[in-house]
């Protein structure tokens, strides 16, 4: 029996599909079912009621933290990528180029540990300010709360977004940008009005990916900030570790899927709209 082209193709992707099914789809379905199962078995929304009752504040906290981090990441990444493409001072561009990618190579848990000593009340940052005479020791305050989480996320995700954005900006047709410059537009104006609109899709992809990544980090909220309020990942871990309660943890997981699905939908909608105009 000879295989048709189609069968052969199916055969070739079978191992990959099997892996996805076994390592992703199966656990996903498992957790979905568990989230909707009551203590006595059978369909129940009890886990969601509990998740809402105990963690509604944390759900909101998570969304706000991740959105704020995304916005700031986008802003800082735009500044970095813009400077890299449009900057005219060779020294600044060279230094930035050499430096900006470093956080990419640092795992979240290490970043969290560094921030823990950096952002503390008597930590490296405040102590340096005091030593430089910029601040009185009594003015020092701890950033080990929501601000610490955002700072860690932004620091860690900016190079990733900047990398994608700088690539996209470098691929643009320089002629339009230079035409803008020749007609007297400032560099900022060229970046905001000419360059950015053309690379919006890439920026959006990078931000959606960052959004999902930040949503799933456990170590940073655990290590940088205290636990009230905290992010959903910490609550999920706590639900399992303290009570062995998988249903509520899975319900929180489903809520996290929904939040990240929201981000994906915004992205897809935008993609479709663009396809339509072409």
């Amino acid at each position, binding site marked *: 029996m000879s295989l048709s082209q189609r069968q052969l193709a199916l055969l070739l992707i079978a191992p990959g599909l099997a892996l996805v099914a076994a390592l992703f789809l199966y656990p996903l379905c498992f957790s979905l079912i568990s989230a909707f199962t009551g203590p006595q078995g059978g369909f129940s929304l009890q886990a969601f009621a509990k998740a809402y*009752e*105990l963690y*509604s*504040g944390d759900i909101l906290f998570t969304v706000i933290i991740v959105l704020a981090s995304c916005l700031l990441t986008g802003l800082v990444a735009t500044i970095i990528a813009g400077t890299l493409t449009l900057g005219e001072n060779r020294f600044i561009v060279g230094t930035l180029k050499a430096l900006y990618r470093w956080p990419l190579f640092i795992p979240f848990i290490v970043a969290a540990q560094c921030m*823990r*000593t950096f952002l*503390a*009340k*008597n*930590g490296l940052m405040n102590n340096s300010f005091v030593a430089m005479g910029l601040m009185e020791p009594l003015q020092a305050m*701890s950033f*080990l709360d929501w601000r610490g989480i955002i700072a860690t996320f932004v620091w860690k995700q900016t190079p990733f977004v900047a990398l994608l954005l700088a690539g996209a900006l470098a691929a643009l047709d320089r002629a339009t940008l230079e035409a803008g410059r020749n007609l007297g537009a400032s560099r900022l104006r060229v970046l905001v009005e000419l360059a950015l609109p053309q690379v919006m899709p890439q920026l959006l992809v990078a931000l959606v990916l960052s959004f999902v990544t930040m949503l799933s980090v456990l170590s940073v909220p*655990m*290590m*940088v*900030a*205290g*636990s*009230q*309020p*905290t992010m959903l990942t*910490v*609550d999920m*871990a*706590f639900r*399992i*570790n*303290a*009570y*062995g309660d998988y249903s509520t943890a899975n319900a929180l997981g489903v809520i996290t899927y929904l939040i990240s699905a929201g981000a994906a939908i915004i992205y897809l909608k935008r993609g479709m709209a663009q396809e339509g105009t072409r």
Partner: protein
Amino acid sequence: MRIITLACSLAALIVASPLSAQTLNVASAGDQNMVDYVKDYLGPMFEKAHPGVKVVSVGTGPGDSGSQKIYEKLDAQKGAATTDFDVVVIHQKAAGQMVKEGLLNKYTANVDTSKLVSSETAKNSLGADVSGYVMPMFQSQTALAYNADMLKNPPANFTELKEWVKKNPKQFGYNGIKGGMSGVAFVAGWVYAFGGDADKLIQGPYDAAEKAKWDKAFAELKEFNKNAVITPGNAGTLDMLNRGEIAMGPVWVDMFYSWQADGKLPPSMKLKLASPGMPGQPMYYAVPEKSAQKKLAEEFIALATSPQVQADGIVKKFNWYPGIDAKNLEGKLDKAAWDKLFTDITPAELAKNGKPFPIAPYFNDILEGYEKKVAN
């Protein structure tokens, strides 16, 4: 298909060959120091006394989650002929459940040193009867650490503590209940102090109506939290004490002394076990019902709970209180090492204010009550 079957059986044969039949797998819940304790200290000692035996030490992580992982593994291997672990080191909460579900072996009668154990926790684990199934590896205790430079007279009880925190906002730090057990212990101590009858929570029996009495205690704790700092974890509390950002906070006694010995905490830090007390807990040695090496496992635990090892390993190396009755350590330990453990907290204070955690159902109620009424 046949090739796969063949390969699998071959692999299984290699794994189960007589060479590795002499491997003793020890799984520890708890921090890395406990994994290292077996790997670097107990393991080599046991291997020397039993030529041909290899001790493998694995860690499943700190806190109750570590024990939960061991429980899940044993539960998943219920149907198998043998389980991967031969000796497990677990927390109290999981021990009760494992005994109830028949995952552990009733081994202590075969181990001589079990006669040296007198503590109540060897029989009763948060309300579950575990006698015969476990032996304490050590006893650990939480207490309030404070900076003696900033604070001459530490609060003697929780009411004084409440007043002190009101007068000194943001000078007291603890890690809530999601950041580690010392915070949980503090909350349990709070409920013991203000939630009515502590003995009832510790001894049972469980009465679901009891938790209604804690509302006032939780409301006060919510108020208390406004003037307290929620730190990121056990180590976070110690970090902040060390940097002088807070003056007081609940910590594990052994962790406190170890940090002090390493120079990570200044000598001006002291401990206080405020009345009515805070919980401590043992870690248990247990043998899974389906362990392939029951005899070796028992010998291993006998060594680990022998007076000499308890003195050198548990007390001297880690500043834990011994798992066996302390009087058996006499003569095995120099006075300095022994006194160090009892400098700040006298044996009498420890006996009076060192409390167990509440029985499991109350324990869960306290945690959930905290989530509902304090953290939310």
